[in-house]
């Protein structure tokens, strides 16, 4: 099988046409320091059967969440994805037309995105949602930049309950876009109050609910404090299923909601592709990044869909666009939309209830193990434990007993030794009581 379609002759004639002596010549403008001089150490080509064998052996080293009792969460959650979701998203009508390059002729795709936006606005309690972002973390960074545009200020405050990966993405955008983000200390106990830190330079406060440690809070007072000072409140939700049960960000007074939509319709996928959720108030819609689908009527009065308010976007506004995002996570948004449609409003609430019930059950079982205590006084489907010893080596030992025990806080905050004994544990509808008993038993054994 030939992987590269061009023959040596093709290459030579193309190079001759543009007056380049070799392929390497094309990279002359790349600074020498940035070039890889040595060849990448990869084995020579092999036959298909041999490649399959090599790759299968590599894949067998993985420990997929589905192969063990998994309690991993901290921003990526294992949920059941009905077979119907995968079947429907792979239909050619959706799969090969996942992005509307010529919006008017892709009415089905636009209708789906319109339904997706409606769902995101409904579950978050906001006025208007866009057609999705790359993932929750980039959505959070875009939200901060949007708040900076609206308030004409450049200082944001990041909660100590915000997932550190989100914080890092916001800081990366800030480093190159000229804004600053002040991050609070990790809030394992769930006691921080950021209202006192807001001043006349604050553009926004970014909180996560439930927090990365699982604490559930009502941020209504914080929203009021931020808005009184002319700042915005951004509420991040990394576990979208929680919106089936918890007070939505819109009801707390959030100005911008961002979320990770992976939990609904999308598998863990080794960390991506995921789907960022983004919603705001009507009055801020022109400062919102990303694509927006609108409902309209055609010349004959029939219902139809368009991409609207495109003047915010890069292909029209160039460097003055609200964002450099020119696309959306179409296929993951479709999976989200189909799964949520199949669940319906009652099913979504029921799914959230099951998640919470399983987490309560897990907290009771693990809290009963000698030396373990549950940190949280409130949680949805995820909470923090304190262990009598560092969590990371313990988690390694538990793998040997068939349990993926959770995410050690040390993995997220390697520079915070006081969090070494904290373990973040999640339970979803996929965890059986047998899984939980195994976890509690194994934990007692390895301690």
């Amino acid at each position: 099988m030939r992987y590269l379609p061009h023959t040596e002759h093709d290459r030579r004639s193309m190079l001759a046409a543009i007056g380049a002596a070799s392929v390497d010549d094309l990279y002359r403008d790349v600074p020498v320091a940035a070039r890889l001089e040595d060849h990448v150490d990869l084995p020579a080509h092999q036959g298909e059967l041999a490649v399959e064998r090599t790759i299968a052996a590599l894949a067998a080293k993985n420990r997929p969440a589905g192969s063990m009792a998994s309690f991993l969460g901290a921003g990526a959650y294992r949920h059941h994805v009905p077979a119907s979701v995968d079947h429907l998203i792979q239909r050619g009508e959706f799969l090969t037309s996942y992005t509307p390059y010529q919006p008017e002729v892709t009415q089905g795709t636009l209708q789906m995105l319109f339904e997706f936006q409606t769902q995101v606005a409904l579950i978050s309690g906001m006025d208007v949602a866009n057609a999705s972002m790359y993932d929750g973390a980039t959505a959070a960074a875009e939200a901060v930049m949007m708040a900076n545009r609206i308030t004409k200020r450049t200082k944001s405050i990041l909660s100590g309950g915000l997932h550190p990966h989100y914080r890092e993405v916001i800081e990366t955008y800030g480093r190159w876009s000229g804004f600053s983000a002040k991050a609070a200390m990790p809030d394992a106990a769930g006691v921080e109050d950021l209202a006192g830190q807001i001043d006349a330079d604050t553009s926004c406060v970014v909180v996560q609910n439930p927090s990365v440690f699982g604490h559930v809070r009502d941020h209504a007072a914080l929203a009021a404090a931020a808005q009184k000072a002319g700042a915005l409140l951004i509420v991040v939700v990394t576990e979208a299923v929680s919106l089936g049960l918890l007070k939505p960000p819109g009801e707390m007074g959030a100005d911008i909601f961002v979320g990770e939509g992976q939990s609904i319709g999308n598998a863990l996928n080794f960390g991506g592709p995921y789907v960022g959720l983004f919603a705001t108030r009507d009055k801020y819609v022109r400062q919102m990044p990303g694509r927006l689908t609108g409902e309209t009527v055609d010349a004959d009065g029939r219902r139809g869909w368009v991409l609207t308010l495109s003047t915010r976007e890069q292909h029209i506004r160039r460097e003055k666009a609200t964002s450099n995002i020119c696309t959306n996570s179409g296929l993951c948004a479709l999976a989200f939309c189909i799964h949520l449609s199949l669940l319906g409003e009652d099913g979504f609430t029921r799914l959230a209830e099951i998640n919470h019930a399983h987490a309560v059950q897990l907290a009771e079982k693990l809290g009963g193990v000698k030396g373990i205590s549950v940190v949280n006084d409130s949680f949805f489907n995820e909470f923090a434990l304190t262990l009598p010893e560092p969590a990371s080596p313990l988690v390694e030992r538990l793998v040997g007993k068939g349990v993926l025990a959770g995410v050690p806080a040390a993995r997220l905050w390697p520079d915070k030794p006081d969090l070494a004994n904290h373990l973040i544990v999640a339970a979803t509808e996929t965890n059986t009581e047998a899984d939980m008993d195994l976890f509690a038993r194994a934990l007692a054994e390895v301690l």
Partner: protein
Amino acid sequence: MAEIRFSKEHEWIRLEGDTGTVGITDYAQSQLGDVVFVEVPEVGRKIAKGAQAAVVESVKAASEVYSPVAGEVTAANAALADNPGLVNSAAMGEGWFFKIKLADKGELDELMDEAAYKAYIAGLG
């Protein structure tokens, strides 16, 4: 009769006392097509001559509107929020964008009068 001047970027400014009212010309609105949104500057903002002061969006394009003079914004046309079409129906009147207190009235001399502007747009073909 208040004095009216025009910029090459198709803004007009009408001076009354030391304050000028700024909008886009009838030629500009006809080139843009149906205006759907106008972003006006905040009152109190100090603007340099030639700096971006507003944004006008039509069904065809989004364009920046530049201040033809330096000064401080004293008023913005709130009516455009609900009725951006005023820019099309009355570009030189009710469709004004903002009022600006001039830092230097001498800057008006650098702008075109009506006859010069008419000749300028005739030359644009």
